[in-house]
């Protein structure tokens, strides 16, 4: 700690901080313009100058001068104010008086500085600079005339986002912000808009809709990917006008521009029930009665096990918890699963195979009532934990890693938060980035090593890496306690999936004593992790507790014992339907998740779901799955909801409602209504009450509260794993010359954002990405349609040529309903296809 005085106030601050940081932390105001806590200070505007003793006789910029022992800092004096005033006047010489219609007015740093420094007249003149205003770019408008050339946008785009899409053009007085006099073609994350201290960058969705002081700000969590970014929605008159992340300001494009999903015209506001083969609108009570009657009929005829439950990685923890409680306690079986089975749960299963199931001890249930959204379990001194959750990494620690190996992931579109952390890690000169992907991805440009492999051959690559480790250091032993190492060494090359292979590799090389040494699986949806955590799985109770050893806690709280017989997974359930097995479900209760659109082999899923006698779907939109349902119940989403989400790294995000649900209802209310009608009443006043019950049943969540992750950092970890063999055969289903990868893009999240105007502006439709040489062979030009056909089906999509893809590999995004990519796939996101000029 360093002792110094600022304006006579004695302070103690950490070594390495700058004067400005020290002052801001202690509530001392120093005017500044180019400094922002999210980016590196460069001291270019010189407005934060302060007098420093001992030091040079001239004022020093506070944002770049580090604190020193015994330093005396004066932030306000006549001389300093004069300097600042002159500096701001230079900026104002050519600054247009746009304040009445500039969207930044009211939260503009230049306005604040002008007011604070009492500048009423600018007594300088300079050549007028011609106004270069970019109205053409999508979603972002650039006003060069308003720019104060502080460089905040340039730095955040280059250093934090890693896009380097904007830079300065020209020199000196004529410096302006630009990207080569063409419209912006970037990631459209919009971070530059929020970091701009003035109105030089304007959000087109927000432009002219509201003034900054008219907005009501509500903190909530982004509903798209598993990153779990906390942001504020800014509302006026019951409408969202923009969203903003406080602090770092970093958000991705779908988070910042995708909020329009809430007021999409396609949203359902009235329940639908099937009458004469048609879905027609019905009042809530009628629809709920109809749903309960249909389900009851199936239960009475075929037993409760004939009702299969499908949870939702989009719904809150509370809704999913209630859902599994309804199935487990209300119906007495474990036949439930969620679409996360096809991605995140699969990764967890692979990691759990190697590192074992979750165990925690030394946590105690506190009798004192805690605040809302806080676990009642207290972490005690001797708390111990083991198993797979402890090997999953904390996103914030990712930037401390020495080496990051990215396998198969296109980081920024799939998990932007990881992307920002990798950008932070790159600041460390000893850091090494290894990117392995069949495609060229954004991080190739930063990678120290790029590994290009054939689609689907991740396991061979991983075997190669493990061999390399073993060969490079004969006698190498893993840092972690590992069983079966000798066998594994022998059978490595002679010897259930990618996740297991990655977990094996981590067991071999991981050093969990170091910050950031962990596995970072990617959760596709906002609550993919939460849906698994709260027990929407056929083989685990909430908190990954096994069905057999619940210790009676569940039966006590739920009033009914829990069946010890594990249920069937989603995939097994579909197989049962296919084979017309007697155990196959007769009724489905789908909490969300568009199975038809998202599961591989669309035609098969559609056919199998039609076999189900009665289907209840809760969704915000009339999805392809909802069209097959007998009852569709519209749910509240996004800023209409209260509850919690768990991000990919186990952090709890709390939602607050900013809008009225407008005819829809939160998932948990619908579940209680249905459960009541089916003879298992569950009464809750709010989402917080559900959270309290849920957290009481999950000791592994000990110490969790808003913004904190589980497992708690105070739990001492004893990790051990055993090497699990995995098959090395690679087979991509189907035949054809090309390998199709079905994947995600940065503009969209699932099919959800295709309903949002902002996201549709960035990416209005699908295009088949293809290597130009392949396109030439097919004799198709950019934008021309090609017919893609596989054993499962065919679709026609325009092409987009890119060198990102090697020859023989094509990529198609799976967001759009008019070009359903899963019509082509059979059991994964890879398949072989034929291409034909369409």
């Amino acid at each position, binding site marked *: 700690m360093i002792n110094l005085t600022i304006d006579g106030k004695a302070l103690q601050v950490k070594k390495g901080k700058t004067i400005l940081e020290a002052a801001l932390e202690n509530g001392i105001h120093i005017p500044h313009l180019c400094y922002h806590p999210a980016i590196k200070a460069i001291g270019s505007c010189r407005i934060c100058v302060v007098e420093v003793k001992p030091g040079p006789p001239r004022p020093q910029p506070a944002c770049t001068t580090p604190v020193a022992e015994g330093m005396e800092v004066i932030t306000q004096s006549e001389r300093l104010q004069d300097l600042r005033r002159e500096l701001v006047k230079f900026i104002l010489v050519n600054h247009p008086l746009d*304040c*009445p*219609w500039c969207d930044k007015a009211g939260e503009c740093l230049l306005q604040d500085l002008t007011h604070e420094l009492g500048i009423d007249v600018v007594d300088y003149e300079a050549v007028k600079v011609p106004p270069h205003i970019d109205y053409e770019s999508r979603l972002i408008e650039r006003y060069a005339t308003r720019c104060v050339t502080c460089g905040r946008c340039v730095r955040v785009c280059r250093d934090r986002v890693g896009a380097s899409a904007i830079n300065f053009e020209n020199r000196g007085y004529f410096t302006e912000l630009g990207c080569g006099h063409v419209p912006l073609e970037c990631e459209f994350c919009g971070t530059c808009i929020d970091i701009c201290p003035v109105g030089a960058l304007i959000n087109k969705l927000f432009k*002219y809709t509201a003034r900054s*002081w008219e907005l009501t700000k509500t903190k909530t969590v982004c509903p798209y990917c598993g990153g779990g970014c906390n942001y504020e929605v800014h509302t006026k008159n019951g409408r969202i006008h923009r969203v903003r992340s406080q602090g770092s300001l970093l958000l991705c494009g779908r988070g910042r521009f995708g909020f329009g999903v809430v007021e999409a015209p396609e949203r359902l506001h009235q329940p639908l029930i099937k009458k004469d083969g048609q879905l027609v609108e019905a009042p809530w009570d009628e629809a709920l009665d109809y749903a309960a009657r249909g389900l009851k009929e199936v239960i009475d005829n075929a037993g409760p096990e004939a009702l299969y439950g499908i949870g939702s990685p989009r719904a809150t923890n509370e809704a999913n918890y209630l859902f599994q409680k309804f199935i487990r306690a209300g119906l007495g079986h474990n036949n439930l699963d969620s679409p996360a089975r096809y991605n995140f749960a699969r990764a967890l299963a692979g990691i759990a195979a190697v590192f074992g199931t979750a165990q925690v001890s030394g946590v105690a249930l506190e009798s004192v009532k805690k605040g809302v959204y806080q676990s009642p379990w207290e972490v005690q001194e001797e708390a111990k934990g083991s198993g797979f959750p402890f090997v999953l990494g904390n996103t914030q620690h990712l930037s401390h890693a020495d080496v990051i190996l990215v396998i198969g992931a296109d980081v920024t579109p799939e998990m932007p938060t990881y992307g920002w952390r990798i950008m932070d890690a790159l600041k460390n000169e000893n850091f090494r980035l290894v990117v392995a992907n069949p495609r060229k991805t954004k991080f190739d440009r930063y990678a120290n090593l790029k590994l290009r492999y054939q689609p689907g051959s991740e396991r061979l690559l991983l075997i190669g890496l493990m061999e390399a480790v073993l060969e490079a250091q004969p006698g190498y032993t893993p840092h972690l306690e590992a069983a079966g190492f000798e066998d594994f060494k022998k059978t490595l090359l002679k010897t259930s999936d990618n996740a297991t292979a990655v977990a094996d590799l981590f067991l071999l090389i991981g050093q969990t004593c170091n910050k950031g040494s962990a596995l970072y699986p990617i959760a596709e949806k906002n609550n993919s992790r939460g849906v698994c955590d709260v027990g929407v799985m056929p083989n685990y109770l909430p908190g990954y507790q096994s069905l057999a050893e619940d210790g009676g806690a569940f039966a006590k709280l739920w009033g009914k014992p829990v069946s010890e017989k594990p249920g069937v997974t989603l995939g097994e359930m579909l197989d049962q339907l296919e084979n017309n097995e007697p155990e196959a479900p007769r009724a489905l209760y789908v909490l969300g998740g568009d199975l038809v659109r998202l599961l591989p082999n669309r035609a098969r899923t559609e056919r199998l779901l039609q076999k189900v006698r009665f289907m209840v779907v809760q969704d915000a939109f009339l999805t392809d799955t909802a069209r097959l349902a007998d009852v569709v119940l519209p749910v509240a989403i996004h800023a209409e909801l209260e509850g919690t989400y768990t991000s990919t790294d186990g952090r709890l995000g709390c939602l607050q409602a900013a809008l009225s649900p407008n005819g829809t209802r939160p998932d948990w209310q619908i579940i209680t209504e249905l459960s009541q009608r089916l003879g298992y009443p569950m009464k809750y006043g709010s989402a917080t009450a559900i959270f309290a019950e849920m957290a009481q049943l999950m000791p592994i969540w000990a110490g969790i509260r808003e913004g904190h992750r589980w497992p708690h950092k105070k739990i001492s970890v004893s990790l051990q794993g055993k090497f699990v063999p995995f098959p090395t055969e690679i087979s991509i289903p189907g035949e054809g010359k090309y390998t199709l990868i079905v994947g995600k893009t940065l503009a969209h999240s699932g099919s959800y954002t295709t309903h949002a105007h902002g996201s549709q502006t960035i990416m209005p439709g699908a295009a088949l990405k293809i290597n130009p040489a392949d396109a030439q062979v097919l004799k198709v030009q950019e934008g021309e349609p090609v017919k893609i056909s596989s054993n499962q089906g065919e679709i026609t999509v325009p092409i987009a040529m890119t060198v990102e893809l090697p020859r023989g590999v094509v990529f198609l995004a799976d967001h759009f309903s008019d070009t359903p990519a899963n019509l082509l796939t059979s059991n994964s996101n890879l398949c072989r296809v034929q291409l034909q000029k369409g």
Partner: protein
Amino acid sequence: MIYPLIKGLATTLKHCVSKPITLQYPEEKRQVYPRFRGHPELQVDEDGRLKCVACTLCMTVCPSRAITKITPAEGPNHEKYPAEFVIDLTRCIFCGFCQEACPKGAIALNNKYELAQYDKRVLIYDLEKLRAKA
């Protein structure tokens, strides 16, 4: 004794022939001074276009919340203009703050002061009613 009576009569007679102080309202209207603060109205420029840029400062400063709605919109040349502008005259206290706050000189109080109506709805002024007549 008689003198005061005559004096009084003289005063009466003087007023009988002098110009009356009262006005025959509503047939005759009182002329007010130019700086009188009457109803707010939206100013137009030489081309007859509204000067207002929908910055909503007047709405923000209005102490009696008489300016109830300003809906901004974007014009063909990217200019900002009010698509809707509503002032509730029944709430207006004619303080003139709006005029003072306006950065474009787009709103000003005129000399009209009549507020008596059979129906209050007449006093909710929209963009058309607020536009100053040339």
